[in-house]
């Protein structure tokens, strides 16, 4: 048994290194090291990062049995654990919501948990227990498909920097006060929490990602925002409701983000921005904005075109622009206000830094072509203009090319790349 000639290579390394090695193993292998020798019996038990998934237990065809095994594994692992737990991650579609979750979260709330990620199967939603709100040291919280109901005594997560809620059922005022009570919040992501009215008050917020149907979004205090990504789903009644209000969506969303560097807008984003009374009130210059990506821009709607124009003309340092169209070809072909481009378009406008432009889903409708023409004329340092037609447009491609070839280019270096698909 004890052969000193073959000396133990690894057990006497410092604890920090052992922990470093064990953390890099899948949890099941890390737990198995307790079978190696007496020195290793409880070494895994002080790991501060616990990552659980379906690989922790042997697969089984019987789903209920598998779930039970996994639940047992997690419960026992927590029970045997010693010391603080800084990260707890459970991501598996094989486990649906179970009553044990409440006890796990209670246990973690007593163990100085800092990062909590829970993503379970899709058929059931978790109801977040109130002990979740007692995890005072949370820095990162990611919850998928759960019901969130902060108790009235909840004063906020004072250390929270990262909040990601995906398909979370929560009341508008609850989520608003949650956000505003996390003073250090830097990154916020809200996806598919339907029909929220959001007033975001987050003085340290840098990264914002919103996705889903929102009744109203107002960035009330987000002066440090750097990246904004919004995918706005809208139903007819929401659109109507918004038409009737007189507030300007553009200002509500982009009115106070002077340090914005990257803007991404999807689905109905430009339409959303175009709603509201906006006569000439655009005080903000986005001097840090370098990349703009706008998808599903409908070029038959003059208002949307105006939104896009306004954005790019107020971004003197824009380097990359990506626009994806979504025009109803029939209506768009009958465009009547084409003279806009000659009369009202700000003519001595120059995009001094614009280097890359990508136009995708182009149908070749008049307004699209005019827009491209406008860009080519006003971008003295342009290097690449790539155009990808809509896959369904086959006949119009030749016409598009004929027009493109004719456009004047302000930049001698500009390449026009027509991507066939």
């Amino acid at each position, binding site marked *: *048994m*004890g*052969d000193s000639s*073959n*000396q*133990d*290579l*690894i*057990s006497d*390394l*410092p604890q*920090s*290194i052992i922990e*470093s*090695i*064990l953390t*890099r*193993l*899948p949890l099941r*292998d890390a*737990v*198995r*090291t*307790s*079978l*190696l*020798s*007496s*020195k*290793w*019996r409880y070494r895994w038990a002080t790991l501060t990062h616990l990552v659980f998934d379906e690989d922790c237990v042997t697969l089984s065809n019987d789903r209920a049995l598998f779930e039970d*095994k996994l639940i*047992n*594994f997690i419960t*026992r*692992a927590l029970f*045997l654990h010693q010391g603080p737990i800084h990260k707890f991650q459970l991501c598996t579609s094989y486990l649906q919501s179970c009553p044990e979750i409440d006890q796990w979260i209670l246990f973690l709330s007593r163990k100085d948990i800092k990062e909590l990620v829970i993503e379970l199967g899709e058929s059931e939603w978790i109801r977040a227990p109130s002990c979740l709100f007692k995890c005072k040291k949370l820095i990162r919280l990611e919850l998928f498909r759960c019901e969130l109901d902060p108790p009235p005594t909840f004063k906020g997560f004072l250390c929270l920097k990262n909040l990601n809620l995906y398909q979370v059922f929560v009341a508008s005022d609850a989520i608003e006060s949650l956000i505003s009570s996390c003073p250090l919040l830097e990154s916020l992501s809200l996806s598919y929490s339907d029909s929220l009215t959001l007033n975001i008050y987050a003085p340290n917020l840098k990264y914002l990602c919103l996705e889903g149907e929102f009744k109203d979004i107002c960035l009330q205090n987000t002066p440090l925002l750097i990246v904004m990504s919004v995918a706005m789903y809208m139903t007819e009644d929401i659109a109507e409701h918004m038409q009737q209000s007189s507030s300007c969506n553009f200002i509500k969303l982009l009115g106070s983000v002077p340090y914005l560097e990257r803007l991404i807008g999807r689905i109905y984003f430009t339409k959303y921005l175009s709603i509201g009374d906006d006569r000439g009130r655009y005080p903000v210059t986005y001097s840090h904005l370098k990349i703009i990506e706008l998808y599903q821009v409908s070029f038959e709607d003059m208002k949307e075109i105006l939104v896009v124009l306004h954005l790019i003309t107020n971004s003197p340092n824009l380097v990359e622009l990506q626009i994806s169209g979504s025009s109803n070809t029939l209506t768009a072909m009958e465009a009547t206000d084409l003279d806009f481009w000659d009369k009202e378009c700000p003519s001595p406008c120059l995009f001094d830094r614009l280097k890359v432009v990508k136009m995708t889903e182009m149908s070749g409708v008049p307004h699209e072509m005019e827009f491209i023409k406008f860009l080519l004329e006003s971008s003295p340092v342009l290097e690449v203009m790539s155009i990808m037609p809509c896959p369904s447009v086959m006949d119009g491609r030749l016409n598009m090319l004929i027009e493109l070839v004719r456009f004047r280019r302000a930049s001698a270096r500009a390449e026009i790349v027509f991507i066939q698909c």
Partner: protein
Amino acid sequence: MSEFDMAVIQPEMIKSYIWLQTADGSIQQVEQEVAMFCPMICHEIIQKGMGSSKTYAISLPQRVNPCMLSLILDYCRFHQVTGRSNKERKSFDEKFIRMDTKRLCELTSAADSLQLKPLVDLTSRALARVIEGKTPEEIREIFHLPDDLTEEEKLEPLKNSTDDPRIRLLNRLYARKRKELKEREHLKNVETEEEHVDDRSVEDLLSFINGGNGDSKVLKTSKSKKKNRRRKEQQKNASVDESIESQGKDSNGLNSVCNGTGVDKLHPHPGETSTLPDVEDDTFPHKVEFDDGDIDDEIDPALKEKIDREVEDFARRLNSDWPERMQEILSLGQEGRPVNENGSLRRYAST
């Protein structure tokens, strides 16, 4: 070249060198920019001004031997150059890390003592890759770990061990096999103990020898004493739910009680009976430790009462599980269990 020329040229040509001393006493010179990549060396140079000459060489921690030092310096020499791309660095790292496990462990240790975190991360990752997916035997083989866990402790943790009763059975058998081997070593000790005990009943023996059939009880009790001790030893290291043995021992205790003899024989039992909690699961086994010499002459009445109660309790329990236990006994009976136990069990059953 005149001296003046030399003086002009030399300052530009000289690279700074740092003197490092490893634990075995050997000293070497290393380019300063390379050595400074290690925080610990950096600290020594800046905070303490060491390393500028041979006499003031920086002593490196003990875990850094010359071989490891040269590896570490190779690493530093590559990475301290700023212009390299991430891809280049990654590919260097992949090649660098290819070495046998022993060196990998030494390197991890050395890098840690020099506080060179990127290298520690790299080696930790490599060691994790070595460990991942291997069985405990393979891992023990690679790292020369001692196999010093009992069979019980080797049951995979967090697995619900009641899943498979055969595992528990197997575990018991393995444990017993090992104990039998150990017992042979201990046999000498046991014999001296027996002599010691026999001393007390010498008069009894003499009177028996002289008086003919005298104290059959005595013989029985001394026999049961031996049985007890052997059982106790088995009990010492076996898992708690070795129900057969506990039954056997207990029935012996009952026998002694019935015979109304030797109070001293009872003493081993209280400890033993009380080690039979209602534990079904052997996940957290209860280890029972006794000294062989722990046999007293006195036993106070309160304790005796307690023993009686426990014995009755256990009798009741035995009765209810009897058919099941019978099965178990019969199947294990073939494993060469001492006949006495079975015999005594039957005696108990008939009462």
